[in-house]
């Protein structure tokens, strides 16, 4: 444990000490003046500094007294330190805003972000050593969530962007999730039967994989561009189909999702021992019963693992689809890029990362559960 914790703590300290904690700019577009942590802590209420110290103390406690309890409190300490640091930033921002013009913005600097990143790494390392480490998400993020709900963090530039973009953000988030789910459904409906067929007929396998691999290599923006023409032509005949918007985005996402799903279906079915299939038929199970009760059940964990890859990939790709008018969190990211407002970019990017991590976790849990349900046989 020390091998990982010590260097990470060193990086966290360096981030706080050497890199700017905050940046203060006259307006939204300028990069602003760096403000180091010493000044920031000084501008903020001492209460937060105490909380910060307490959090850090709990965080490093396991180094001196290892054990499950100190590990849980370490997670809580990370959460408190994160929240306190954010609150200090917000406090300082409020002071600076009072002194400057209404257009002035204070945003978190590279030091604050790096500090937060190392803290999260430390926490995840600690959580890994605990039995229900996944529940560690609660102590780490609850204090931050509480501050967000109370509005303590409102003076920060990131939150001010959110305040303005509130409705657009909600809509974009919903669109993003809808795009991902809307693509996973058809991808499963097409990919799983295709995988089953490919596993059975070698000729199909020889054709399908090269084609799917080729599709994967096409850059997403290029694929969107390629789809505009044919879909627009199709749209003249079928209402609701058009070259831009949700339809091409979902179509492209489905195409990209096919390879992992087909590949994992084939792999999962390949993993069924031959004797087991023969035994099932010899017992008198019909082909359908054999497939459902034996093949499909045994292949399920591998398929779920493939779905994990698919879902995470889809979350990322859906961000690009904003470029063809499909909406989603990508619209916020690109808006920020065009307006050169970096906090807007972060406002769009953080939820995408969170969604990707959430999708990964959900499917990891599902895969592990399915393996356990099969008695650890697969």
């Amino acid at each position, binding site marked *: 444990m020390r091998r990982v914790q010590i260097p990470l703590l060193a990086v966290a300290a360096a981030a706080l000490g050497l890199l700017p904690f905050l940046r203060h700019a006259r*307006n*939204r577009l300028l990069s602003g003046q760096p403000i180091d942590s010493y000044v920031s802590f000084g501008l903020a209420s001492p209460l937060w500094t105490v909380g910060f110290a307490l959090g850090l103390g709990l965080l490093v406690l396991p180094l001196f007294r290892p054990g499950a309890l100190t590990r849980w409190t370490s997670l809580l300490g990370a959460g408190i330190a994160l929240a306190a640091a954010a609150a200090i930033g917000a406090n300082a921002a409020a002071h600076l805003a009072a002194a400057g013009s209404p257009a002035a*913005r204070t945003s978190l600097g590279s030091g604050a972000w790096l500090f937060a990143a190392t803290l999260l790494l430390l926490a995840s390392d600690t959580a890994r050593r605990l039995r229900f480490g996944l529940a560690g998400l609660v102590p780490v993020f609850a204090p931050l969530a509480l501050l967000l709900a109370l509005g303590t963090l409102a003076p920060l530039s990131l939150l001010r962007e959110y305040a303005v973009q509130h409705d657009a953000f909600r809509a974009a988030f919903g669109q993003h999730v809808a795009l991902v789910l809307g693509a996973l459904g058809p991808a499963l409906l097409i990919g799983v039967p295709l995988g089953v067929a490919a596993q059975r007929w070698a000729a199909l396998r020889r054709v399908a994989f090269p084609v799917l691999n080729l599709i994967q290599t096409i850059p997403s923006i290029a694929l969107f561009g390629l789809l*505009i023409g044919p879909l627009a032509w199709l749209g003249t005949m079928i209402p609701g189909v058009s*070259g*831009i918007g949700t339809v091409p985005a979902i179509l492209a996402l489905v195409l990209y999702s096919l390879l992992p799903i087909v590949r994992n279906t084939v792999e999962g079915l390949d993993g069924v021992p031959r004797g087991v299939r023969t035994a099932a038929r010899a017992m008198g199970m019909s082909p359908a019963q054999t497939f459902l009760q034996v093949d499909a059940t045994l292949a399920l964990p591998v398929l779920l693992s493939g779905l994990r890859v698919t879902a995470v990939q889809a979350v990322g790709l859906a961000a690009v689809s904003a*470029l*063809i008018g499909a909406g989603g969190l990508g*619209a916020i990211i690109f808006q920020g890029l*065009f307006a050169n407002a970096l906090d807007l970019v972060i406002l769009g990017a953080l939820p995408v990362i969170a969604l990707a991590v959430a999708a990964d976790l959900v499917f990891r849990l599902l895969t592990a559960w399915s393996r356990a349900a099969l008695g650890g046989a697969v």
Partner: protein
Amino acid sequence: MAFLTRRTVLGAATAAALAPRADAAAPVKVGSKLDTEAALLGTIVLQVLKAGGIPTESRLRLGPTKILRAAILSGDVDLYPEYTGNGAFFFNQESNPVWKNVTQGYDLVRRLDADANRLAWLPPAPANNTWGIAVNGDAATREKLSSMEDFARWAKAGGAKLVASAEFVESPAALPAFQAAYGFKLAADQLVILAGGDTAATERAAAEGISGVNAAMAYGTDGAIAALDLRLMDDIKHAQMVYEPSPVVRQAALDANPSIPGLLAPAFAALDGATLRTLNGRIAVDGQDVAAVASAWLKEKGLLK
């Protein structure tokens, strides 16, 4: 009476329910490009039309120019604000000098699009959002720069350092047109070239003096110019094409909603360059909400209750 059986009554009711009703107009789909000004203009259109009792559907921030053009041609969008000068690219007439004239350019694109695509270009706002060069405020004051002629003089003296996109530097309609009209040529060490066409980045660079630049590629109605204390050089010889924002509407949508031109005309007429710059500034620099800025301005002008 035999013919009034249940089946015929049911059939007639169903037919009546399913038949397209000529009096209920389909909502007008209003789109816009991704950038700040496009979103502002699109929002103004939406609010004005809604106040005028026309049902609308928002498709703002749909994508870049190419996407919007494809959308309006295919009917995915009924109306979006486009620049008169872009007609040169839609109809492959980049070298036609008529685009540098305010009225002639508008007339040409109006005629071309009406004939070829049944698209109507409504009267544009008197704001020229064309390419320009904005100089760092301190440098402009020090060197007494206010027009492109002054800039040319300064550039020849070796004082200027411009940051621009590759497209701006290479496109015959952009920097080369300036250089030809005003008789100057920027040397390689007087140029910093960025990959993308983001004027927010170039303007920030000129304002902060990043990499020693003191002049930036800019658009005529950029909101950041005033906020960053930059000075836009006046194009007195009209070297650039004119880009005035005009609502482009599908003729079919116009026929269904003939009140659209009357509603939009006063709003667009009031959007001159200075106004547009101020409004853009409130959104891009102050970070205010587009809808709030639009409705506040419309109310100020008495175009919204």
